[in-house]
């Protein structure tokens, strides 16, 4: 394919391949703008891929931040229509425990009603029937329209739709500078993280959607953006503990949400302000694990004795809208900045902060602003246009019954796109990842059509290595397939070593019990049988690239 992208003048250049950037690329391309999306690593590597996977009803914010709550419930209803294949409509419960104040429940229900969130107060016995894993000592329960959402799938669906509408997508391309013309930005300089090649791209409007890294982007343009990173640690359990999202009915606090996601459950989160220079070094401490377990087992006693398969942490990109040095006016809402108005610099917009939940709304706001700057008058259609995978055909696909678990898993992951993934023969149907039922055909599809070039990318496209064994058996198999089928030639053994070390980063904080037994076996397999440690030491492999 001939690459003309560096000779084109783009209407919009978007920096950041998280859900905000992907959603913005979709909105821009649907409105006919010539769009380029640049991402320094892969899609969803930041906060997008490191949260609960909770489709908030907004109830959590109803008491303290009704504005956020209203946005949440509106987007909740929109996403349930346009992103069906990314969502499991589980419903949610807010439970009150004996140590909580039952009076708060009334305040909570009133606040929900005020912003349009449907609630239903349940008798504790009814609530237990609805979710048997909930703490039986609860003294009150309220049903809300919470759900579970897969952020990797959601981001990919936005990227696929953007590309279908002409957007140019470049992963592993880092923005290293801007091109100025007086007080106007007219383009970006990029570095290809693989080849080391530098390029320039011209654009009329540049959108900073880099999440917590947006501060660095702003600084590159000579501007300041006050960001206040907040770390949240979470735990993944090896099976589905609950079928309904469980929340504590009290002021938001540590470990008070338990979300069922696919075959697992996720417990979180903590909230700790961290210095900005630590945002690339997230690790979960044993203290955080202990705190999560202690608090989480109050939501569901099963938390105390269920096997944990992984601990991870994300950074919330909290931002101060104005030049606020104190950080007192922090909001979990989003911020949309036109830097010509705020800083006198034309051609740069920033869309930052917010939540996974509100990505579509954020994309709409910043695309409105870009259209205004470009003199384009096209309305936003993302609230009504289903994402690829969730079109009308999806219903038919979901009704299909297959006796093969890997086919059912594929339909779950790709919705109406799953027919594009074809097994030519029995070789293609061979299972690579047994935990997540990923077949050879699905790996080949991710390589050919979803820009997967290494095991990290494959994990985010297919869930490979995300199950109970955390890559113990599938990582080697997938590395072998990448080596055979991927046109981007890399040191696949070195990538495999990095991948296993990245998996290890999420495992060592929870290394006890069955997990410790398993990891001892994984060590013997890869370092004993396969000699991977020798390869790492002999070839000086850098194994700390855990975001790539």
């Amino acid at each position, binding site marked *: 394919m001939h690459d003309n992208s560096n000779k084109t003048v783009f209407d919009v250049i978007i920096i950041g391949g998280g859900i905000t950037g992907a959603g913005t690329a979709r909105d821009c391309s649907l409105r006919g703008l010539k769009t380029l999306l640049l991402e320094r690593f892969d899609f969803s590597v930041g906060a997008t891929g490191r949260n609960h996977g909770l489709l908030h009803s907004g109830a959590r914010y109803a008491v303290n931040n009704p504005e956020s709550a209203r946005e949440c419930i509106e987007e909740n209803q929109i996403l349930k229509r346009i992103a069906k294949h990314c969502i499991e409509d589980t419903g949610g419960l807010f439970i009150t425990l004996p140590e909580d104040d039952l009076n708060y429940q009334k305040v909570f229900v009133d606040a929900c009603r005020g912003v349009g969130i449907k609630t239903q107060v349940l008798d504790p016995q009814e609530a237990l029937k609805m979710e048997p894993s909930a703490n039986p000592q609860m003294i009150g329960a309220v049903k809300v329209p919470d759900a579970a959402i897969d952020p990797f799938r959601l981001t990919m669906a936005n990227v696929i739709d953007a590309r279908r509408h002409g957007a140019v997508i470049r992963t592993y391309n880092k923005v290293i500078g801007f091109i100025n013309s007086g007080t106007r930005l007219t383009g970006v300089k990029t570095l290809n993280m693989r080849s080391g090649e530098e390029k320039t791209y011209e654009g009329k409007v540049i959108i900073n959607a880099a999440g917590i890294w947006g501060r660095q982007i702003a600084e590159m343009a000579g501007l300041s953006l006050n960001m206040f990173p907040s770390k949240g640690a979470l735990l993944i359990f090896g099976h589905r503990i609950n079928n309904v999202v469980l929340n504590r009915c009290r002021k938001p606090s540590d470990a008070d949400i338990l979300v069922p996601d696919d075959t697992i459950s996720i417990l979180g989160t903590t909230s700790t302000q961290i210095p900005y220079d630590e945002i690339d070094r997230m690790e979960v401490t044993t203290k955080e694990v202990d705190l999560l377990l202690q608090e989480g087992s109050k939501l569901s006693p099963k938390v105390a004795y269920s096997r944990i398969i992984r601990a991870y942490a994300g950074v919330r990109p909290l931002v101060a809208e104005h030049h606020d040095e104190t950080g007192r006016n922090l909001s979990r809402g989003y911020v949309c900045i036109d830097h010509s108005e705020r800083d006198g610099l034309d051609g740069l917009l920033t869309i930052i902060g917010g939540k996974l939940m509100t990505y579509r709304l954020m994309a709409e706001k910043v695309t409105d602003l870009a259209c205004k700057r470009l003199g384009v008058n096209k309305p936003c259609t993302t609230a009504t246009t289903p994402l690829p995978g969730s079109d009308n055909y999806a219903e038919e696909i979901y009704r299909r019954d297959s006796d093969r678990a890997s086919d059912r898993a594929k339909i779950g992951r790709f919705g109406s796109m799953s027919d594009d993934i074809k097994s030519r023969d029995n070789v293609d149907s061979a299972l690579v990842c047994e935990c997540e039922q990923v077949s050879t055909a699905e790996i080949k599809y991710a390589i050919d059509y979803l820009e997967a070039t290494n095991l990290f990318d494959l994990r985010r496209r297919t869930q490979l290595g995300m199950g109970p064994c955390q890559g113990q058996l599938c990582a080697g198999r997938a590395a072998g397939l990448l080596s055979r089928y991927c046109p981007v030639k890399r040191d696949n053994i070195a990538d495999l070593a990095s991948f296993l070390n990245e998996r290890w980063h999420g495992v060592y904080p929870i290394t006890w019990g069955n997990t*410790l037994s398993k990891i001892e076996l994984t060590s013997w397999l890869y370092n*004993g049988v*396969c000699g991977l440690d020798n390869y790492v030491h002999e070839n000086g492999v850098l194994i700390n690239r855990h975001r790539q």
Partner: protein
Amino acid sequence: MKADVVFIGGGLAALVAGIKLLENGLSVIIISAGQSALHFSSGSLCAMNRYNDTEVHSPLEYIDLLPPDHPYRKVGGASATCTLLKEAEVIMRRAGIELTGTLERNHYRLTPFGVFTPAWLTLSDHLTLDSLDKVPYRKAAIIGIEGFLDFYPDFIAKGLKKIGFETVKSTVNTPEFNLLRNNPTEMRAPNIARTLTEEGLENYAYALNRKIYDCDVAIIPAVVGLNDNEPVKQLASMVNCDLYSVSTIPVAVPGIRMKILLQEYFTSLGGWYLMGDSATDGIFENDYLRSINTANLGNTPVKADRFVLATGGLFSRGLKSDINHVWEPVFDLDVDFEQDRARWYDKNFYQPQPFMKFGVKTDEHFRCSLQGKTLRNLYAIGSVLGGDFNPLTDGVGAGVTLASAMYVANKCLE
């Protein structure tokens, strides 16, 4: 139920020690819960690969430099270790396991990722080299099986090229493999091995011969000879050049073959192998273990003069753990482990992991202790042993297992 010696656990340590006792006229019972670490073995055994940060070429030269409580020192240092390990080697050969290698000098084995790592003994159908400077072949045909994902021709080719081989990669297919593929999870090494007899083996040989071209050696995944060496020899005789295997991602054929051969030899000598049973607890009289109870035998205790704990490490469940403890699940014996959980691991997966050192405490004769009191007739051997050594990164796993097993067998004969 009574025997002279009862082993709890039925892997490499118990089988080799048990065979030695049977050969010397004692009665032996092995209680085995099922799969052992052998099922995951690469087909190689290591005596010592690393001392501090240097690669070891001659394990015996380093043994007397080890700390006094290292198992090799406890059995009596270099010369005693040498005697015990060579005796274990002879037992394994008598059981029908064909091995290459010597304790005097490590050889190199080829791993599934194309890396050459040191080893003491390797199954003789696997590719080994005495030195990486002298390559005995010119050109290798690396032949995978279509759709078999646990063998990596690209990685092996890369490793072989690095030391001077020319390589050709290909895959083969046979009607038997097609049948296996009807189920997407069936294409695993032991399942493939089960199809490789008689006609299946002939078809495989025919397919291999068409991919050898001008090569003087063919390298295939270790998918032949699950129960014994016969299919390996038949295949080698039908293939038109030298033929070697490389181990696959487990569950692995080479280790299963070793296990089956040892177990068959053990039972042929009159040993009792209680498969699928596990010890639950023991009846003690002061420092003497009188009998043990098992899950399957109900009220019938198993009595012996001596008991040997050979239940394996963490992944064999010879040791168990929770959020802040590690314990030995049968007798709750004294165990060495770090109190602070944050020190159980290293954050780099490729550095030595402290949890590998956890295990039961033993005295100078490998006798276990309970609440600080040494037990007179309960010994521990193999991976359940704790101590200041890392079986994986030091490359002493199999050596310590076999040396402790043979030492304790000698104690039982005293």
